[in-house]
Each structure stands twice: as C-alpha cells, then as structure tokens.
C-alpha cells in the first residue's frame, strides 16, 4: 500500500551503491536506506538533503581540541603505511604556524630509515627533532623526548611510532609500555593518542580503532589520503561505535596538505 507513496526503488538502489562504494559499510547503509524508505514520494527531490542530514547526525559538527597543557604530548599510532610520519611533519608545521614551540620525536626504531624520514620533515617544518639513529628501544626514545620537551619548555611534543597491526599483541603491548614510560616524566601524558587511518582501507579500520582503543585509548582520529578517490566513509561507523572525534584530514604528500576536519564538507564529499 505504502509503495505508491514512498520513494522509488531504483533511486534507493543508486543511493545504496553510493553509500557502499564510500566504505560506509553494510550495517550503516542498511540503517540509512531503511530511514529513506519511509520518505514520501512527494519529498523525493529532497532525498539527497535528507540523507545528508541523517549522515550529519552520525557525526558531531566541527571537532575541537583541548589546548591548555604544556607540553602537550601527542602520541601518533596506527597500522603500517597509513601516513603517521608524514602527518607528524604536516602537523608540526601547522602548530608552528599557530605560534607553538614544537618538538617531534622518532620513536619508530624498527622501520628502515624512519629516523631519517622524520628528520627531513623536521627540517621542512623548522621544528626541533629528537631520535636515536641506532636506537632499538622505542620507549627509551619516548622517555628522552618527554624529558627534553619539559626541559626545553616546549608547547607540543609529537611522538612518532612504528606502524603495527592491531592483531600483533606484543606490538600493542609495546605501545602500552611506551605510555607508561611517558607517564614517568609527565603523569597526565600522553594527553592525546591519535590514530592515523588510511582512507583507502575498508572495514578493517573499525577493528583497528577498536583494538587500538583497547590497548592504548585513542583520543582522536586522523584520516589520510583523501586526495585520492577513496571516501573514508568507514569513519562514520567508527565515530558512531566509539565516539572518537576526527581532528584532521590528510590531502596530499606535502607539508601543507593537512586540513581540519569539517563534517559538513566531509559529508558532501562522501556523496558526490
């Protein structure tokens, strides 16, 4: 009976295809389509706007950060290759432009040339750099970095860590240990643990967010590689399940290619 008064099936099929292709995921897509099925045929021209409004309820508008600790310690974590090191380079430049005195630390003692990679970024953004080129103990680097940040009166300390799969418990424990060691120097640190997610990755990002949250507590998300064709829709499901704010978006490989998350812009981009 209601069939004659609700939106056309083919329109809903197209919307479903768009949502799935954006990595929104099966569950969330089903929920959204269910809601759209109730829309009257007379409203069908407004369908896209109704969908956007629904998506907007899933995510808080512009996310804000806490700013009043010194040094503010940010630990960057995530699985392999998502863009942690590059993002630190970009953020250090961003924070410097905001007038902050930044120190970045290479606590990835595993990956070949990780030290060199971050050092180059520190030169590009003009910030101080700390690391141990022969180092084998990431927690030791984190410890030294925290000490140095306090001693040198830094505003922000960003610590780079090695990429690691959330399924490797020994590596997740290594991160938890790094947190403990940092706390020995600054009890409330790290004030932020930011999980860097690659927007080309699918539903596994949800498992990543869950596991990293369990092991080290994630306080914010950074979504990278949005200059590609991937939409990163999976962050909606993550935000819905874990309520973690999204702070920045990586939109390229250069120093200035990082923007603050804007939910309106993000949702519009998801659907075009």
């Amino acid at each position, binding site marked *: 009976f209601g069939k004659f008064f609700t939106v056309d099936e083919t329109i809903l099929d197209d919307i479903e295809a768009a949502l799935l*292709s954006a*990595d929104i*995921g099966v569950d969330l897509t089903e929920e959204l389509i269910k809601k759209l099925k109730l829309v009257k045929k007379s409203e069908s021209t407004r369908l896209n706007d109704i969908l956007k409004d629904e998506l907007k309820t899933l995510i808080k508008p512009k996310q804000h950060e806490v700013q009043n600790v010194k040094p503010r310690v940010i630990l960057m974590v995530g699985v392999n*290759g998502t863009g942690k090191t590059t993002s630190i380079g970009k953020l250090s430049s961003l924070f410097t432009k905001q007038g902050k005195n930044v120190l970045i630390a290479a606590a990835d003692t595993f990956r*070949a*040339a990780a030290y060199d990679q971050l050092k180059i970024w520190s030169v590009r953004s003009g910030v101080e750099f700390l690391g141990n080129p022969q180092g084998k103990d990431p927690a030791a680097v984190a410890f030294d970095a925290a000490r140095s940040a306090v001693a040198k009166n830094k505003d922000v300390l960003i610590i780079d860590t090695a990429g690691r799969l959330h399924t490797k418990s020994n590596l997740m424990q290594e991160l938890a240990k790094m947190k403990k060691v940092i706390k020995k120097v600054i009890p409330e640190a790290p004030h932020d643990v930011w999980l860097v997610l*690659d927007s*080309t990755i699918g539903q596994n990002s949800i498992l990543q967010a869950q596991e990293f949250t369990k092991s080290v507590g994630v306080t914010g998300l950074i979504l990278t590689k949005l200059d590609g064709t991937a939409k990163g829709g999976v962050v909606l499901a993550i935000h819905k399940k874990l309520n973690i704010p999204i702070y920045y978006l990586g939109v390229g490989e250069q120093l200035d290619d990082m923007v603050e998350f804007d939910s309106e812009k993000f949702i519009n981009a998801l659907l075009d």
Partner: protein
Amino acid sequence: MLEQLQNSFGKIVKTLRGEGKITESNIRDRMRDVRRALLEADVNYKVVKDFIKTTEEKAIGVKITKSLSPGQVIVKIINDELTALLGKQKYNLKTASTPPTIILLTGLQGCGKTTFAAKLANHLKKQNHKPLLVPVDIYRPAAVQQLEILGKQIDTDVYSEKKKVLKRIKGAVSFARENNHDTIIVDTAGRLHIDDKMMKELVSIKKTFSPDNTFFVADGLTGQDAVNTAKVFDEQINFDGIVLTKMDSDARGGAALSVVKATGKPIAFIGIGEKPEDLEIFHPDRIANRILG
C-alpha cells in the same frame, strides 16, 4: 561464516526430504547472507552483485543427493566459484632473453612496495639469482635510504645514482650487465591513479624499458576503492600481476577478489609480514576461505 552458511542453508532445505532441488525462492534469502558477508569482507559492491548473480544461476536447479546435504552443496558452489575467480591463472615470473630481467613495482602510497622489493630480492636469491635493487622514489623523504638499508639487511646490492628516474634505471641496467646481476627490481614512488604527472612517469618507464614483469602492489586491507585504482593502473601500464600485502592482518581481503575481477590479472604474491622472508606464493583456495570468513 562458511559454517553459518552451511547451517542456514541446511535449514531451508530441511523441509525437502531425501532428494530435492534447490529452488529460486529458497536460495534467494541465503544469497542475501552471502552478499552481506562479501561486502563486509570489502569485496567491491559491483563485483559482489555479479558474483551473487552467477552463483545463484549455478545453484538453482542443482539436485540434492543423499551423499551431501543441501547446505554443503551450496557452500561448495560458492567456494568453488570464488576460488575459480581468484585463481584462474598462476603467475610465472618471466625472464628476459638478454639479462637483466626487469621487474617493475608500482602502486599507491604506503601499500608495501619497498618492503616487497626486498622480499622479492630475497626470494630470488634463494633461487640462485643475483638480483639488484633499484630505488627510484626520489620524492618521499628517505625512500632511497630505506631500500639501501633493506638491501644491506639481505646482503643484496642496491644501485642508486643521484639522477632522475629514467637515468637511474638506465644506469642500473648497465651496472647489472657489468656485474652479472641477472635481475633488477625497480621500486617506484607511491602514486595516486589520478595524478597525471606521476602516472605519465610510470608510462614512460614502461615504454622506455619494457619491464619483463610489472607488478601492481595493493594493500590487502583496501576497501571499495581497490577497483578504481587497479583499473586505472591496468589501463595505463597493463601490469602483469598483483601483489597483495599485509595479509598477516585480520582483514578479510575482499580487495583480492575486486582487483582480480576488475583487471583479469593474476595475484602473484602475498605479503604476510614486515621481514624479507614474509612472502608467500598465492593460494586461491586459502584466500577464498578467508574472504568468506
């Protein structure tokens, strides 16, 4: 998920006693479960649609015999179809008639090309080849250094001349000939399929050197975007095989099916870790099982 499928299929046909046929109505609902499972496994939406349609057609009208339960029959059809799609061709590394054999590695940013270069060199060494690593990522900070360090770790020569990309490869080919390296592995910078300048660079490498093997390296965790990127890379450089990395994760790996279906190219290798020895030859049945969960 295979177990769940078997049980739910078993339920539908419990009502059919002894011998019976699988009908359209009783299979349609179960196919919805398969569709959900494949989408959750990151198989591309369009690829899922085609797969479901083909499998449904194959299953309808299949006779149930006393030797196998209906659930088992349907699951076997799905598994066989998936395995066939994934493993139609096995990849055999081509060698050049006049050395060195040139292997070109391409792919998006961060998918694991540099790590795979070391793994491949290690693999070839074990087969008594003498590979030469050639880093040509002159853009990303410390990319060349990264491969130099990995080369040292596996006691393999790395050729790195402070020149632009094409000159580097040219120099590497000469060096390989002079030093009896039978294979060179060219590690390129990660790039977006929509970056015209960088895609042009790849096309010119292909045109200038006609690599014997060109691999598209893809992150095993990739979502729906896998089809977009693979298609464009294939259209532009017609790669020979696919390498799927980070399969030591708990990702279901649906990208495997998406990329194979979209390009018709075979999966050659699987990356299962960060160390040089973490390389596996592709087994379609194992990946099929994993995608179905």
